[in-house]
Structures are given as C-alpha cells and as structure tokens.
C-alpha cells in the first residue's frame, strides 16, 4: 500500500529524488527538501528514545532504523514495521486534536517515542531468534507466494506475531511516561470511553472479540486497539507492577516465543483470565468515578434522536428547516453530511463524504444566507473543499487538494477561513467568495497549531485553540482585519494549560463562546463571556459533552458521548458551582508506582548535534538493494512436488527489488528437461520484469487449478495511475511477454498447444471507485470497470478485447447487491485455441492465494468444469447478493480465531458466440458461497470458503460443482 501511494505520488512529478541523512542508529529518507528542517530533530528524538530503550529493554537493534518522512496526508501519523527491516513512516503534518484524542506536545518526539517502542517489540531478539535470522539471512517476510515463509517469519520475528492491541497498547502506555505524562494512558478521551461503557452497561470486548469485532464494527474501529490495549497494559502495571510488565514484553533468554505463552509464564494466569479480571476492576473503578460525579446534580441531556450518530463534526442549526447539519459517521452507513430534524429526530443523510475523518468526519461550515454547506473531503489525504446546496441538493468540488480544514464561515463578507497543513506547518488561510483560491494569512512556526476556529458574527474576530510544542493550549482571538494584513497577533482569552479548548463557537449574539474541555477530568461544557471575561462551567456530565451549538433563543444543543457514539441533545446553560473531578486510571497507577516518573526522557536537545549526522546526500534505490532473506520452499509442478529455495532482494523502501524462486522436482515421471524450475519477479518503481523456466507454484500442490507451465517466459510490464484520487483510481497498464516450449496455453490449463513460440501483448485500463461503510467486510457500493485487450502472436495474430462493468448498491446492515457485467470478442483464425475465451468453474484451489470471490470474474462460471465453455464472443451478466456478515466475538483464541462469516447468493447468465448464429449458446447458473475469515498466528488473515453452484446449458442439461478453499494471506 505504501509503495502504491509513493508510486502514485511519484507519478505526478516523475520519480522524486530521495535524500538521506544518517546517524549511528537511524537513517532518514525524505523526498522533499521542504521537509529537511525536521531531519536533525527527528534523528535526535530517535537517538534519545533509543538510549532509554537500550537500558530498559536490554535492546540491541538488529540493524539501523530507516525512517521515511512524508507529507501524504493532512494530519500527522506514524507507522512502524520490523519485518523484514526496521522501518518507520512519519507523516509530518500536525495531528488532529479533535475531542482531545491525542496529546498536543511536540509531535516528532512523540511519534519517535511511540514508534520506537514498536521497533523494540518486533525487533528485540534472543539468541534463538538470532540464530534463525542468521540461517535465513534476515527476518523473513511472510508471502502468499510461498506460505511456508509464514513459519520462517514466526521463527525469525516471534514477537511480531502479537495482536494489534498488544503492539499499540504497550507503545501508547510507554509513550505516556516517556513524555512525562503527556500521552493517552493519561488521556481524557480514553478515560471517558471506559467510564461510558460502565455507565451505559455496554459490552466490553474480551480479548478475542476486540480484534474480531471491536476494531471493525464499532464506530471507533481500529482506535479500539489503542484504547483497550493501553488500558490493559495500565491495569497490568497497576495490579502487578511495572517490573512484571517489562518482564512480559521483553524478549529475553528463556522467554516463551509467543506473547500469550510468555504472559502465562510471567503472570501465572492466562491472558483471557487476566483480561476478565481487568474488566471487573475497570467496572469498579468507573463506578467510583461515576459516584464522585453524581455527588452533585448531573446534567441531564434531553436527547433529540433515538439513534446515535457515531462520530460527528461541528454542527449548525438551520431555523428555516428546523434541522441541525453535521457530518456523521457510524457503522453500516456511509459517512455523510446529514440533517438531523429537531422535531422528529430523523437523521437524513444528504451527501456522502469521500474520505471521512475517524473522529471529526469532515470540516463543516455553514452559510446561512446562501443556504450552503461547505465541507472537506479526502480528510485522510489532501483535503478538497466542496459545497452542498441544502435547497437544490446539488454539490460540487470547489478546490482540490487545498489541504485546508477547520473551516469557519465569515457571515460579514461570505469568505471562508481555515487552517492549512503543508510541509508540517500550520497556516491560517482565507478563501474569499467565490472560493476559487486561497489567500495565505499567516504561517505559524513549527509546532504551533491552530484548530477549531470560529468567526464572530460581526466578522471582526477569529477565535480558535492554539497549541505549542509543550502541549499547552489556549483559547485565543485574532483580529480579522489584522490577519488580512498578515498580522497574527492574538489575544489570549483563556489558558487551558494541558487541556484542549474544544470546538469553542460564538453564540449568535456574539457575547459568548461555548466549547468543551476535560478540565474536570470529564469533558464538560464551558462558556466564555466577552463582557465579564470569565469562563464558566455549565455542565456536570457523567460521560462527556462536546461541540455545543448555541441557538438564537439562548438555548443550547450539545453532543453527548455514549458507548455507541454521539447523540445530539438539549442541555441547560446555567453556570454551575459544583463539579467534582474524576480520577484517571493512569494517575492512580502513577500514584502507586512513582518510579514511572523515572521513565521520562530528557529533551531530544540533550543529544548533541555535533557529529550526529554521519552520512548525507542522495538515496539511490538501485544501489541500496540488499539480500532480505533466503529460505527453503516447496512447490508443485503439474502433478508433482519439488523442493528449492527462495531469495528476496530489495532496497529499504522496496522501490526496487527482485524475488527469485528455484526448485527441483525429483519425480521420475517428469521428463528430465522439466524437473528444474526457476522464476523471478523484479520491480523498479512502476516497471516490472518477470520470467520463468518451467514455472512451478506452491498452490499446484493442492486442488484442481494448475498454474504451473512448461517452457520459458519473459514479461515486461509497466503500470501507472492516470487518476489517483482514492478511492477513485484509473490505472493504465501494458505488458509484453514471450513464451517458448509451451504445452498448455498460458491462461488456460486445460487447453493444450504444440506451439513452440508465442508472443503476447496486453493493454489494460482499469477504473475503480468503490466504497464500504464502517463494519463492512467487502466493498459495498460504487463502480468498477475495465477495458482489456490482448494480442497473441504465433505465426499470425490473435487479437481479443473484453471489458467489465460492475455496480454495487449498499443495503441495510452491511449487505449489498451487485450487478456485474462483462463482454468480449476474439478475432483471428477460429480453428486456433488462441482465438477463444475459455470459461468455467469457481476457480478456487483447495489451498489458494487468489481472490476468494472468483465467481465474479468473467472467466469463471461455477457449475461447469474448468475451461469447459469456449467462446469467440461472450456476454455475461451476474447478480450477486452479499448477506449481512456475522461477526464472532468469542470464537477462538488469540492465536487463531474466526473473525466473520458471510453468505453470498449469485446467479449468472452467459451468452456465447453471439455474433454467429450456428455457434450461439447460452448457459445459466445459480450458486452460493460461504466465507469464514480466520485469523491465524494472531496476525495473518485466511479465508475458508465453501460453495456450490448448479449450471444448465440451453438443452437443460444440469451440472453441479462443489468448492472448498482455504485462502492464505
């Protein structure tokens, strides 16, 4: 995915130059000179974290860490991997501080603290692991080409194979102490999530259900891995102490390989049991907190809807239609700009939001006079500005990739204000009507970020939350006339210390600002009075209240947090005098174990920058290609088995690489010339070169589908994106290939040929614009189409063209209906096998690594044999109904569990040779497929599929086919 993103970015500007700066333990790669200002600081941040980790975890890195600095998205992010090499991806943009889900301290240090813990967890090795790494020449990457690599990978990197909650939990737990308490183990959002689950008496996922359902079907999706993992780590630390926790997570000599087994070795109880104990203790802890809150009258929100909205954006009230407009995102629905009807509570989804943010959904602004909503799309990439007319229901994109959000509408002159993130910096920008261009008002220095802005009703002031590298935050006010002159001097209205001033917005009369903050521990509503210059607390929330929306009549609407997401509600506006603070579990842990303060790192500036950088210049991928790993494999060739070796070479960014498989089939029934097998697959940027000699394949050991082929082949391919605006993409690919000594057609295993030499050329244009709602297991709506042409050449040319067009419709509860069409026409000598399409069967092998839903492909026709139907021309229509998936909460253990099951019903009609009356034929089939998603070794997806289809030809002759298949990875 990273490679495709990088290549897609590269496409727009040719292949980018990549620069490198390296210290003793880290090398930083970056493609934009505009990112270079961060490099030294980043290196110092990592060296600083590593100094700590060397001592605490007795960690010796197996290799130098590679870091890629990138700016592919408008919000900062980090990702780490240790297989095959230690690698961190750093998105340099400022973070999203919505709902204070993240701390606001200096983010390069924060990212390196967090991600470096992932490196320690995955890379730390004992002597046994190191022996395997020597044996296989490195850490083995699991590949579906040779699934035995999964086993080798678990030998070389045993702790890589732990649940996501383990990796994120320990990284988040450690990040908190490494930054002196500024982390999510001590975060208001985390505390609220668990307090609310207890308040609502909601289901708290168990150790298996979290991964199988909690991280996909819940509105917080993957964030639950962080939330639960951090909480469990904190509980372990609180209950058994930090020493035991370190003992569990550190890969020491004589420690069990598997993280679950090691848990039992250290704690003496199973992880399932400990998890249950934590949940029981969590309930007690939160009951105490709720009791503390209830000592004073609690705010009783009067809910406006019966259902929850999931995540919600800033909202606006439209008195004309008596609705609230907001961006919402909740399971089984596409994220949308919605109208919430105040009188009925009806939620009307007005317009889908492409690329919604997890928590903030979209930046939304409202022009009450023009009755238009302005909103951002591509919120996880480079944001676009869009408009939606609430009267005409027309929408349009106004500006693409403006990288600007936190929108606020200036009713005085109709301009939009926003905050742009570019090259790691925040900038206040104005977008004057008619919204064709942006005007830069002020660039903040690195580490200072402005968010949740609003414009006063008279258009004189812009307010917002400002944060600096220390993580301290203030509610501030700028003069708009000064901003237009580039003067960003601001007035501090209120210093929130380390709390976020959340979503402070003007009352319609301009006298007040309403917002929220975790100052009391729970997120309560606050009101700032410009006349008295005082800040009042106006709620005593049991869970949390956010995003207040003051109305012209002086009343107030806010969004109440529930265990299923936010609910709009009316809330009182009276200033309160008594609100109790809640206790944070992280703080209770610190109070019990004050030594956690000793885990605070010194500032990165304590690492001397003198002689820090040992190497700098250009990074050349080709010159950095190294052996990644090499290991024994088994392969199938026709009906025989062989053994051999696989070697993988690649550079650190995997922009250039080659895999080579070689094997030998000792079966005496094979002619000696067919016993040796070699294949390779090389790539460089968007070019690929592959070839084989007597191609062998692991999956030919199992089942009826055979892809092994006699002879030699060489193929050169090039692919590029013509449109890369995810999820909308248009790709163009061409390839040319040559074959010799074939005995079967390259594409059709049951069609023999005695052609000695064969040339092949393909051109493909593929469009995809598919989407899925939260909780989906597959694409649920959208369009995909492709146009394909192929030319076989053997003494004469055999051209053919075909295409497909598929359209999906989202139905309730993550079910979907799809119509899939395809048609093709082949030319050339009709007596030659090269001039036909061949179709038939499901196409899945017993053990497989192709797509699980092969019945969707044009060449598949379940119910008849493989390649049983030949056609010079064809037209096919398939209707497919995907029933709602069933998710399993407690089916399995942490190392192997069932994630979900889904049943599909399909039926298709196939018309062949429609251009010639005598050969015209037709077929119909009806079938079903049941898929179970299984997670193996904690980490690796597999799918067990079974299916049955019956097919009939035009004579009414009926045949049936069963299919059972296990897809690996």
């Amino acid at each position, binding site marked *: 995915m990273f490679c495709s993103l990088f290549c897609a970015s590269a496409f727009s500007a040719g292949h980018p130059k990549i620069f490198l700066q390296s210290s003793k333990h880290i090398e930083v790669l970056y493609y934009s000179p505009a990112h270079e200002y961060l490099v*030294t600081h980043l290196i110092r941040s990592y060296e600083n974290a590593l100094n700590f980790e060397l001592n605490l975890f007795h960690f010796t890195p197996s290799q130098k860490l590679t870091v890629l600095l990138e700016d592919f998205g408008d919000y900062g992010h980090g990702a780490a991997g240790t297989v095959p090499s230690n690698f961190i991806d750093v998105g340099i943009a400022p973070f999203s501080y919505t709902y204070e889900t993240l701390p606001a301290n200096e983010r390069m*240090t924060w990212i390196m603290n967090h991600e470096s813990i992932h490196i320690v967890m995955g890379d730390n090795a004992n002597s046994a692991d190191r022996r395997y790494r020597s044996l296989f020449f490195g850490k083995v990457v699991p590949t579906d080409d040779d699934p035995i690599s999964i086993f080798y990978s678990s030998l070389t990197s045993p702790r890589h194979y732990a649940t996501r909650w383990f990796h994120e939990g320990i990284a988040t737990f450690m990040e908190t102490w*490494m930054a*002196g308490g500024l982390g999510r183990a001590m975060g208001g959002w985390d505390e609220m999530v668990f307090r609310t689950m207890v308040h609502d008496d909601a289901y708290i996922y168990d150790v298996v259900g979290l991964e199988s359902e909690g991280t996909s079907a819940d509105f917080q999706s993957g964030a639950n891995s962080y939330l639960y993992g951090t909480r469990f780590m904190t509980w372990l630390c609180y209950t058994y102490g930090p020493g035991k926790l370190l003992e569990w997570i550190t890969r020491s000599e004589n420690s069990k390989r598997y993280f679950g087994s090691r848990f039992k070795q250290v704690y003496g109880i199973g992880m399932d049991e400990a998890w249950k104990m934590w949940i029981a203790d969590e309930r007690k802890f939160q009951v105490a907190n709720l009791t503390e809150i209830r000592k004073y009258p609690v705010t009783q929100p009067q809910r406006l809807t019966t259902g929850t909205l999931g995540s919600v954006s800033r909202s606006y009230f439209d008195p004309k239609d008596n609705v609230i407009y907001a961006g919402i995102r909740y399971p089984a629905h596409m994220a949308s700009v919605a109208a919430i009807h105040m009188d009925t509570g009806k939620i009307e989804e007005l317009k889908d939001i492409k690329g919604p943010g997890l928590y903030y959904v979209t930046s939304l602004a409202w022009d009450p006079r023009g009755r238009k909503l302005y909103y951002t799309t591509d919120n996880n990439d480079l944001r676009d500005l869009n408009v939606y007319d609430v009267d005409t229901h027309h929408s349009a994109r106004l500006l693409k990739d403006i990288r600007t959000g936190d929108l606020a509408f200036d009713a005085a002159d109709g301009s939009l204000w926003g905050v742009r993130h570019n090259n790691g910096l925040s900038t206040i920008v104005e977008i004057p009507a008619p919204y064709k261009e942006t005007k830069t008002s002020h660039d903040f220095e690195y580490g200072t970020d402005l968010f949740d802005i609003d414009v006063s009703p008279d258009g004189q002031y812009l307010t917002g939350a400002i944060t600096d590298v220390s993580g301290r935050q203030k509610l501030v006010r700028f003069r708009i006339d000064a901003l237009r002159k580039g003067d960003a001097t601001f007035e501090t209205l209120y210093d929130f210390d380390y709390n976020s001033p959340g979503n402070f917005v003007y009352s319609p009369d301009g006298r007040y600002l309403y917002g929220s903050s975790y100052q009391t521990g729970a997120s309560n509503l606050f009101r700032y009075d410009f006349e008295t210059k005082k800040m009042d*607390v106006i709620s005593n929330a049991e869970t949390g209240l956010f995003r207040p929306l003051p109305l012209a009549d002086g009343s107030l609407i806010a969004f109440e947090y529930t265990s299923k997401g936010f609910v709009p509600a009316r809330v009182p506006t009276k200033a309160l005098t008594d609100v109790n603070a809640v206790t944070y579990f992280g*703080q209770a842990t610190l109070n019990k174990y004050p030594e956690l303060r000793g885990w605070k790192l010194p500032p990165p500036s304590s690492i001397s920058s003198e002689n820090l950088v040992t190497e700098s210049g250009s990074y050349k991928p080709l010159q950095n290609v190294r052996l990644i790993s090499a290991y024994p494999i088994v392969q199938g060739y026709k009906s025989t088995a062989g053994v051999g070796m696989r070697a993988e070479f690649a550079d650190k960014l995997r922009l250039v690489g080659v895999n080579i498989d070689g094997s030998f089939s000792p079966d005496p029934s094979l002619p000696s010339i067919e016993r040796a097998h070699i294949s390779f697959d090389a790539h460089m940027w968007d070019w690929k070169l592959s070839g084989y000699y007597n191609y062998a394949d692991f999956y030919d050991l199992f089942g009826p589908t055979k892809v092994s082929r006699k002879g030699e082949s060489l193929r050169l391919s090039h692919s590029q994106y013509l449109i890369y605006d995810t999820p909308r993409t248009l790709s163009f690919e061409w390839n040319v290939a040559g074959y010799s000594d074939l005995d079967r057609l390259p594409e059709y295993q049951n069609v023999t040929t005695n052609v000695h030499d064969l040339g092949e050329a393909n051109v493909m244009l593929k469009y995809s614009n598919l989407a899925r709602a939260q909780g989906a297991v597959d694409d649920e709506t959208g369009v995909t189409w492709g146009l394909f042409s192929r030319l076989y050449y053997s003494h004469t040319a055999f051209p053919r063209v075909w295409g497909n067009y598929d359209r999906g419709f989202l139905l309730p509860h993550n079910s979907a209906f799809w119509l899939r069409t395809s048609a093709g026409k082949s030319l050339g000598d009709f007596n030659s096998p090269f001039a036909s399409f061949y179709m038939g069967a499901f196409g899945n092998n017993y053990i497989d690594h192709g797509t699980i839903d092969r019945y969707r492909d044009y060449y598949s026709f379940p119910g008849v044999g493989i390649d049983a139907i030949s056609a010079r021309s064809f037209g096919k229509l398939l209707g497919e109904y995907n029933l709602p998936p069933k998710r399993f909460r407690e089916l399995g253990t942490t190392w192997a569990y069932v994630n979900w099951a889904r049943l599909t019903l399909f039926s298709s009609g196939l018309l062949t040779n429609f251009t010639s009356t005598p050969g015209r034929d037709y077929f119909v089939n009806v079938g079903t497929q049941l898929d179970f998603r299984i997670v193996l070794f904690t980490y690796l997806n597999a799918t067990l599929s079974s299916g049955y289809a019956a097919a009939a030809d035009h004579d009414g002759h009926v045949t049936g086919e069963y299919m059972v298949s296990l897809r690996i990875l």
Partner: protein
Amino acid sequence: MIGSGLIAAGVLVYFSNAHIGSDKTQGAIGQRDVYRDGQVASADVATPGSAPVATTAILESSDFKALAKNPAFQELMRYDAFNGLMRHAELGVLLRDMNFRAAIQDVHFAELVNSASFQVALRTHQDLFVALKSDLAFKAFTNSHNMEAIFRSEAFRSAALDKSFDRLMNLEAFRSMTKNDAFDRMVSDASFARALESGSAAQAMARLHE
C-alpha cells in the same frame, strides 16, 4: 452579626458567580489531577525552507550537470531579469505550475503580458481574468480554464508586478528551458529555486566549467 451577614453574603455572591480562573479552577469546580511534566519546551528544528543537504544533492545530480552544459540555461543564468525574479518565491511557484509552463509556449501570452492593457489591469483590478476578458489580446485565452487559474493565482500577480517579468516572458532562452525535461524536473524541487536564488547554483556551474 452584621459582619457575619456580610461574609455570608460575600460567600453567596462569590459562589453564585463561580467561574474558572485563568490559571486554575475556583470554588467547587474540581480540576483533573494528572501528571504533566512536559518533556519538550522548544523544538530545536532548523528554519523551515532551509535544505542544505538536498540542495547539495541536487547540484551534484546528473540533471543539473546536463543543464549546466545547456547554452540556453547558461544564457538564462547570465540574465539579470531571471536572477532577479528568482529571488522571489513566486517565479519558482509559477515554474512548477504546468499551466504556466504551457502558457509560456504560446507567443500570444508574451504579447499579452507586454500589452498596456495587461499592465493597467494588473495595477488596477483585483481579478485579472475578469478585467482582461474583453481585451482583444486576451481573446485567445478566454475559454481556457488553465489561463483562468493562472490569472487568478497569487503567485502570478506577484511575479507579474516585477518589472523584469515581461522581459523574461519574451526571452527565447527562457521559453526554451521551460520545454527542457531536465529543467522541468529541477524546478519541481524548491531547493533548486533556492540554489538559484542564493547563487549556489551559479557557483556549482562555475565549478563544473573549471
């Protein structure tokens, strides 16, 4: 008695207006007790925009070496108007704009930029595109969305206000370079623009010719 009453009244008034102080909560509004001992007080980062490593790498690249041998590039480097304009970031932004590079190839564009009506519109109108719509020299571009984007960009207006801009648009060497692939790749790096601006590109060229 009176004193007690005043104190009680004072307490009542105080709590009826309970509010959060600027540095801490007051009255019975509790404040969360969380450990916050910030690790970083200042980020010791370099000045955004400075990129000595990338600049050096760019000036050592084969693209730059090829450019340095190109007579048109050499002429451009000797041309004061180009060097002057490169000191402003706007020309670098424009050169990275595909619309602008395409427009330069059209001779009508240079004529338009040199026309009196353009110069007047530039100084008197906020929206150049609207101001020039009825101008004859602009007719060829009125249906061009690309041209609309150029004329409405901040970078174009700023660069066009420089007195050297119209002369540069007429320079054949400049037009020639904007068609050059190596130049195209180089200008997409902001560091190259900075190297031109700082003179380090000229120094690197001189070293290559030694």
